[in-house]
């Protein structure tokens, strides 16, 4: 079988034939293999194909992607091959005796070979061999391990994942030195052939959960996976929900902790963000540091985050509702202060709130996108123009600036960025409801949010578990964080195989 289509005869590649590489066996002769490779990698300057003569032996051919292998190790391997002396010269013998290479893999089909070569392995063909050998000489330039920027901690490990899957798996493995930690490989994406690893603890994670994760991953048929976000959206339970149903994290210790609880993590090549499932509402409030700090401090911080969650969601809405519908709820002196600050404001409270919230969100977005040096200028502009000048010009009231600032600060306290975005989003409909129906509208909105929350699931686990369905023994690690000596069992709502964490 040839790749070049004879029927057309116009010299173009028939790319449909590439999908049939699964059945394309490695050729016997170096010459034939070389011809096929050169056809496949036509116009690919980064592919190195080199034929050479082994001393006292047959011809051989190596093929690798320039920049993705460690060149010094390729040199060593070639050197070892060329000085080969005596003995039967078979592929097995090369693998077993000759090569100074840690990982070798014999493959029979081109599809397997190409995936490995394109991931950074070095392919070796020997004259007369029915199989090719993939030499694990992956290397190349990659970002080093740095502190994760989205999940910083005061106390805790400073290592974060990077874009290289092997580094990431190693970071997890170095934390859990147990054969029970499994790392199941997957290749997803018909074109990108992205390496994905599902990691879990055998004997702790519920086998059905692992099975379900694998099933959903296998069902993905997409051309490319460039970030774990693709996978997250493709395998989540409900698409039409603002709430994230799969956690993403840059921290290997968070993945290790999740896996030890009986969750399943998905590491994706090319991104520092690993996925953790199942994910629920209460994890919004949990930071990895909660488990490293003393439990009293951690509990208080969680409560603070809970309060901040409500503030971030409802503070502007409550301000609008109370000031326009229910002024009797504000203490008289505070009301007079608000009235004094609102006296010359030309807008109704809801318009004022929308202006401020929108400009705040715009500032935040601008700060994220801009280069760091320019970002500072944006924050100065925001503080001076939106904050001070708008109040002095009498366009927005000082009270509203305070409300918006409190909301902004509160939304930054949530450790899960993807959950905080959902809260940011839901603030606006609540503000509109508050401006139309007052507190009644807020209640209406909150009822809708809560009922939606209690309806959705993450890999079959109810989103608000263990609050509903009630699983009282798990409440030690929900709003409170019990001391480690009291948390003897793993969370029941995850249905782990083995619930005993300590004896």
């Amino acid at each position, binding site marked *: 079988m040839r790749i070049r289509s004879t029927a057309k005869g116009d010299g173009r590649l028939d790319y449909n034939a590439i999908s049939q590489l699964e059945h394309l066996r490695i050729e016997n002769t170096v010459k034939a293999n070389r011809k096929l490779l050169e056809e496949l990698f036509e116009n690919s300057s980064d592919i190195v194909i080199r034929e050479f003569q082994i001393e006292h032996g047959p011809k051989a051919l190596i093929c690798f992607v320039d920049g993705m292998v460690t060149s010094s190790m390729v040199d060593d391997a070639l050197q070892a091959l060329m000085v080969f002396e005596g003995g039967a010269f078979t592929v097995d013998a090369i693998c077993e005796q000759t090569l100074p290479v840690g990982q070798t893999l014999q493959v029979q089909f081109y599809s397997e070979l190409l995936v490995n070569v394109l991931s950074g392995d070095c392919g070796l063909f020997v004259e007369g061999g029915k199989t090719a050998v993939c030499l694990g000489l992956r290397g190349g330039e990659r970002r080093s391990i740095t502190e994760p920027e989205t999940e910083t901690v005061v106390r805790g490990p400073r290592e974060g994942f990077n874009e290289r899957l092997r580094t990431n798996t190693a970071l997890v493995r170095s934390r859990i030195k147990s054969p029970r930690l499994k790392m199941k490989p997957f290749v997803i994406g018909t074109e990108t052939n992205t390496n994905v690893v599902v990691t879990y603890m055998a004997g702790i994670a519920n086998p059905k959960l692992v099975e379900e994760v694998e099933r959903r991953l296998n069902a993905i048929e997409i051309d490319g996976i460039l970030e774990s976000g693709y996978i997250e959206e493709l395998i989540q339970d409900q698409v039409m929900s603002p709430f994230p149903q799969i956690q993403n994290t840059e921290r290997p210790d968070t993945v290790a902790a999740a896996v030890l609880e009986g969750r399943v993590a998905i590491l994706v090549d090319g991104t520092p963000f690993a996925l953790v499932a199942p994910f629920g509402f209460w994890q919004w409030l949990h930071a990895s540091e909660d488990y490293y700090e003393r439990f009293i401090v951690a509990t208080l911080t969680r409560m603070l985050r809970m309060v901040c969650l409500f503030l971030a969601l409802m503070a502007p809405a409550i301000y609008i509702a109370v000031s*326009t519908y229910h*002024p009797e709820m504000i203490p*008289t002196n505070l*009301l007079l202060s608000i009235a004094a600050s*609102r*006296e010359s404001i030309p807008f109704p409270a809801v318009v004022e709130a929308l202006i401020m919230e929108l400009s705040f969100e715009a500032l935040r977005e601008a700060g994220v996108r801009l280069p760091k040096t320019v970002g500072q200028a944006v924050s100065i502009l925001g503080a001076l123009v939106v904050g001070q000048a708008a109040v002095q010009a009498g366009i927005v009231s000082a009270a509203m600036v305070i409300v918006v600032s409190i909301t902004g600060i509160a939304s930054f306290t949530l450790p899960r960025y993807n959950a905080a975005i959902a809260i940011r989003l839901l603030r606006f409909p609540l503000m509109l409801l508050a401006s139309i129906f*007052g507190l009644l509208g807020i209640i209406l909105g909150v009822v*809708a949010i809560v009922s939606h929350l209690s309806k959705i699931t993450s890999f079959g686990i109810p989103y608000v578990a263990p609050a509903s369905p009630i699983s009282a023994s798990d409440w030690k690690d929900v709003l409170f964080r019990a001391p480690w000596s009291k948390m003897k069992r793993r969370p029941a709502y995850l249905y782990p195989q083995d619930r005993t964490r300590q004896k």
Partner: protein
Amino acid sequence: MRRSWRKSLCLTIVVTCISMLLTGCWDRREINDVAFVLGSGLDITEDGDFEVSVLIPLPGNMGGAVGGGGGGGGQKPFTIKTSRGKTIKEAIDLLQKSLPRWLYFGHRRVLVISDRLAQTVGLSPIIDAITRMPENRLTAFVAISKGSALDVMNADVRLERFSVESIREVLQSDSSIRVSLKDVASSIVAAGEDAMLPYLQKKKTNLKGHESEDIDVIGFALTHNGVMKTAAKDDAANGVRLLSNQFRPYRETIVDGNHAITIAVNTCKLKVKSTMIDGIARFDIRTDIQFSINEDSDLNRNYNDIGQRTHIEKLFEQKAENDIKKAIAIMQKSDTDVIGFGRYLNRAYPGKWKKEWKSQWETVFPKCEFTVKVDADLFRIGMNRENLAKKDKEENG
């Protein structure tokens, strides 16, 4: 999945539509369009009409965020509007017609009623006007003013921004008793009890350059069936304080020969035992009072001496007993049972109360007999036992 989507969308629309029909949803009012009434005064005119005056803060004059700086020199941060009408509500409606902002009574914390109104029409029509509207606060303090209520409200107070704020603070302090609209309403309704309200008067400071006015609680207005009958002042007011079930500490100066002693009455435990002898209701009133010494003009007094302490205790017991007796005498004379002796009787003899006394408590109360016993305890003498400035005669002489 698709179907449940459609279903929930329908549900959302239906719920939204239903809530649009709910009453009370469309009273959206920006703070800028509302005039918050902080306090109001009620007077009666010569023709028998009500005169309602409301105190409205002016947020523009309060020194808001605009321009920064204090509350504008000389300009008062509030204004007072008055209006007349056959009913209270009519007066307010007439006033509303001429105002650009909506009068909002949800923040009225003080209601001052002139004594003339309280003596003629009484409190009942006022209670009706207020309780019909949900906007009004039932926790607002009520007080009776000596003379015009408008005059008291217009007091030129200096320590607070608004005169009603000053009135409220005074009514909240120990110099008064806390009486809210709710309390007045419930005492008027209850059988065997009458309402008692603080009695206010404007007090002037005539110091040059510091002319100002303040609000003074001069006693308690005693009502019967919602109509003010008399007022208990001075000694009688103290007696009422001691009898009241919400005792507030007060100061008093008692005279011992040529010397005066100022004492603070700190706690008072009241025990009322009602008995019936020959068909006449009798009340045994026992009070346990704890008091302390704040000042003593007698230089030779030594508080280490138990005899001298007992002497002071006896003096005060006598005084307190007289106060209580005076208060009871005034109450019986004007037939105003503001302490609620009828309730004590109700508790002791529920059957007889229901059958006989309840309906004719007005006639029974003035005939009741009272015995008063005061047990005072001097429990705190301050930081020194003797006057520190006293010459030590033995050493120097």
